[in-house]
């Protein structure tokens, strides 16, 4: 599954960048993130609950921030394993300034889902993946707007 999208974020590129790098914001946005623990440089362990409606599964995930080119570009790698199968997703994030107050975030992603959920969820897998990923970025948008508001 592949896709892309873009959202507008409040703040300058530098401001947005530092928020994106903030693990407490990340943990609020990554789907069903119950805990986020730093285990190495730019590497986290997380308990994720991924799914839609009642159909959710628990995944033990490793989340890595790589290819870091501050403040414009990085790659997010999520590798989750759980009862329903595994999820390997890769997202490339690029920031470009719109003006003094807003930054454009464009993303591309590719995700591989395997195991039981891939074998039985074919009809909805692509759509749900797209949904969850855009949901992540919407939450980022919300969190960044919120923290900007709190700061001011």
């Amino acid at each position, binding site marked *: 599954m592949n896709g892309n999208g873009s959202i507008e974020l409040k703040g300058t590129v530098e401001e947005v960048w530092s928020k994106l790098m903030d693990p407490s914001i990340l943990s609020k946005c990554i789907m069903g993130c119950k805990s986020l623990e730093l285990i190495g440089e730019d590497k986290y362990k997380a308990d994720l609950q991924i*799914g*839609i*409606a*009642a*159909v*959710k*599964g628990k995944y033990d995930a490793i989340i890595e921030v790589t290819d870091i080119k501050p403040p414009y570009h990085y790659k997010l790698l999520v590798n989750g394993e759980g*009862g*329903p199968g595994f999820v390997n997703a890769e997202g490339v994030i690029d920031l470009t300034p719109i003006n003094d107050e807003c930054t454009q975030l464009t993303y591309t992603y590719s995700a591989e889902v395997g195991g*039981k*959920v891939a074998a*039985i969820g*074919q*009809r*909805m*897998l*692509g*759509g*749900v993946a*797209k*949904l969850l990923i855009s949901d992540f970025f919407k939450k980022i948008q919300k969190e960044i707007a919120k923290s900007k508001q709190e700061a001011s």
Partner: protein
Amino acid sequence: MKPPLFDYYKPETVDQALELLQEYGINGKIIAGGQSMMPILNMRLSTPELLIDISGLQELSYIRVEDGFLKIGALTRQRDVELSPLVREACPLLSEAIPYIGHMQTRNRGTFGGSLAHADPTAEIPMTLLALDAQAVIRSASDQRLVKMEDFFLTYLTTDLMPEEMLTEVQIPLNEMPKGYAFTEFSRRHGDFALVAAACLLDVDKDGHITSGRLVLGGVDSVPLAVHEAVEAMIGSVLTEELLEHSVEEAIRFLEPESDLHASSEFRKHLAKVFAMKAIRTAYQRAQNRE
């Protein structure tokens, strides 16, 4: 394929069921006909703490006409709706759609409300109710509200229902029920999930000009999709194949259905056009016949 441990309770009244939902919230799950819930449980795709079996709440099983609405209780079995002369008389679109749901055996158990609450994007009941501009009665232990179908479906398998709420009734407005109707579907085999489905309601004047209409497509988005423009663009005109094709093509131009094992995005979009046209054509003929 065995489910994980769960508690089970079979409430005897609707109030009891609602109290349990209030207490357990997101950890409680209603089971009615079980046609969606049992496979989900057995495949361990969902792990509720408490299963609330509402199959004993016969007070939620009814079909009646009241205050200008066709009111169907959430627990009414799909098969009962299928066979109901009241439904056939008041709302033939629904009677035409229900036989497409699975097989007779599953319809004997599956409930009307269960299918709606499950909100599968290809399911017949959700999309037909959207076409009928129906509304849902939603109750919690402390509250009751009405939600229109256009606000009810949020995304895949997700509705406006909060964890402590239960769908108790569906109300279909009967005033100005259009005379033309059609439900049509394309699936690989009889009883399968639809690849694409279309539900249409349409009215004409005595000279065959379209006066109003609604079109809903299933299987093309994460929710049942209203594309009323496909019919509304033809208001005032008599239906011709050219006009029909053009309106439908325009209305679905933005559609980007997902690809899956059974249909590519391109094929789905093509099927959406074919079946939207088919539904409108049939609804138009019926509207003329009943005029």
